[in-house]
């Protein structure tokens, strides 16, 4: 009886410690409930064809990037968070000049897009015009959005919202052993 009474008194502390243990291990396991795995993850790159923003004679197809590690970034001049992540893409391009960065200029006017790139720099290897249909194929949720594909033409990483240093370090850099 005395033992039981002691146990009951200790119970709140035991529960607190137990709870702390569970929650800490959950936090440190790097899961994110708000970002369920994308339906496209580990799937093939969807079919697309696009024309270059600067030169309408240049085109890009799915087969052109299928066998290369590629970073695909959806952006627009009207999207302020895109402006925020832009310097990070520039950095990435400088550090990895061989990395192919495909930019899709999503639902934008050509004039505004070119002005945006003139002001902020152009980190992209190729910029394709997207009237919205390519974004639809990729399941773009909101701008900016970034995809990473591997040498087998599979999507290996997807990020919604502006990129940040931590995401680049943990999710993009490991794939860049070019």
């Amino acid at each position, binding site marked *: 009886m005395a033992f039981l009474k002691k146990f009951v008194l200790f119970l709140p502390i035991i529960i*607190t410690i137990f709870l702390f243990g569970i929650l800490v291990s959950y936090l*440190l396991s790097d899961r994110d409930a708000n970002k369920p795995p994308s339906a496209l993850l580990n799937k093939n790159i969807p079919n697309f064809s696009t024309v270059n923003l600067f030169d309408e004679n240049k085109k890009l197809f799915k087969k052109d990037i299928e066998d290369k590690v590629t970073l695909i970034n959806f952006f627009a001049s009207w999207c302020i968070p895109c402006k925020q992540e832009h310097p990070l893409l520039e950095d990435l391009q400088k550090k990895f000049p061989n990395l192919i960065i495909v930019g899709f200029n999503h639902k934008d006017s050509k004039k505004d897009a070119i002005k945006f790139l003139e002001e902020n720099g152009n980190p992209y290897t190729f910029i394709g015009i997207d009237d919205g249909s390519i974004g639809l194929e990729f399941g773009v949720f909101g701008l900016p959005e970034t995809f990473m594909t591997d040498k087998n033409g599979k999507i290996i990483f997807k990020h919604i919202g502006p990129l940040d240093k931590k995401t680049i370090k943990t999710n993009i850099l490991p794939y860049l052993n070019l």
Partner: protein
Amino acid sequence: MFTNFGFYTLLLTLLVNGISIFSNFTGFKKIIIFFCRLSFMFISISFISLIISFIISDFNNLNVFQNSHSSMPIMYKIAGAWGSHEGSMLLWIFVMNLYIFLFSFNKTLKFKIKRWAIFFQSILIFLFCLYVLLTSSPFLLNPINVNEGLGLNPILQDPLLVIHPPLLYLGYVGFSLIMSIALAGLITNDIEESWIKVTKIWSLFSWSLLTAGIAMGSYWAYYELGWGGWWFWDPVENVSLMPWLAGLALVHTLSITNHNHFLKRWAIFLSILCFSLSLIGTFLVRSGILTSVHSFASDTTRGLFILIIFFVVTTFSFLLFLVKSPKEKNNLNLLFINKPTALIINNIVMLLACFTVFLGTIYPIIIELSLNQRVSIGAPYFNKTVIPIVLPGLLLMSIAPILSWESNKFKNKLIYIYALILLSLILIILSFFSTFSVFGILGLLLATWIILGTLFNIFQNLRKYKGKKYLFFLRTNNSLIAHFGVGLLILGITSSSVFQKEYSNSIKLNEKLNFDKYSLQLKKIDVVDKDNYQGLVGIFLLYEKNKFVGEIKPEKRFYKSNSMITTEAGIYNNIIEDFYLVIGDRNKEGWNIKFYVNPLVILIWLGAGIMFLSGIMSLWRF
């Protein structure tokens, strides 16, 4: 400029609280009161600086840039100050300071207890200042040069949500003071009448404000989310409900403790529990480990920091409780049906409900961690568990305030028994002629039983007063009035959930559709242009049996600054029923609409309002 100003005054708040903690162990103990007021001054300046940054749309402040837009009405600019994680944590610190500032004027408590209470609250403020400064500062400078902001999340741009967070925090964070006072009582081993009285005042106050805050949030969810309901068992709702339930147990326990000094220990335990639940709730919502309507940007460091605060504060408090809890003779006078028994049943029911909600909220985390599977616990679990737990506790509510302390006897016993039998018979017969539902009958029976019982008692008491001193009467009968509010609340909950009718269809312009005895006609679609959004308003005419009743105007809004579309339900209320209409997308057949008839739903907020007012009113007794 204001950004820097806010940052430095926040830093000063941290510093002052550090000194205040230290000063408790020096020779000049009285100075702690000065520091606590100084800290309030600094945090007020810091908080006002943030609000001003929002008002003047200073996009050099990163937080303003991310959560405001120059085209927003001034009201929402101000609300933007607590619309984000960073700003709301600053509000949190402000509320903690506000409480201890007001408490510092207390004259009834011994200085020793007061000093320790301020000491513990200073520790909490210190920890949270550290948290904000290190992980969630709203005073960061914007690294990019912009002349426009990203805009506040459109669903937060609502008049109710301007006051909902401050009100909720006044309740939710208010429990921190109650814990500090409890710890002060423990450490000084001096739990006297004045301690009980002070704890009672502050817990009634915080709990009443929490009630109002939760009710307001649920009303917002009702008309803004457009899902036809008012409570979704969303994690963020659950984490505000848990301290509310524990607080309810505390408020009731203190009312016994006031009469005879039993259960002091239990009251202290509940005081600690309430704020611990607030802390763990904040962790669950802010760390991003649960998906919720209020999802804030998730960040492991932030989560870990709050979790550590929770762990340190809770473990320390429970340890102190273990070591220093007051000895008491357990001579509680429990009988079959007297006041202490009723209150103990209340406590068991509330804590059981609280635990059930807690389990349902963290269960997905435990499962994901152990089985690596993602499960979702939703309304079916909570409805099936919480409702049956709470129901028996409600049975005693209508008579609990008039029960005796010492005996099983209470006045007019037979009237109650006959009334209960009669009510059940009437409801069962009625239900055979309408929709039959077990929960429907039980809910209605309890609600009418509580409403009639409390009204009968209020009426009985009123006769004694013979029309004099109404205010005094209201104050002394506040528990009956609060229970009357609960009766209305249950009536509203039961009828709007069990007897709700839901229809969906598509409608063309000028078409008239029939839904049972009601019909809806789409008269026209208006386009409205506001500063911050463009709206499509459907003007619908509602008819009952072909007689015109009123207009309903559901709306879809497109917010320009962040390209988001929101739904605003159109509601026509005739007191008995809410006609709730949501307009969806347009297709070949016309506009998709969802139409709900929610009977007596307004009683939910009326009941909650009465509970809130009676709680506040009771403070005048002291």
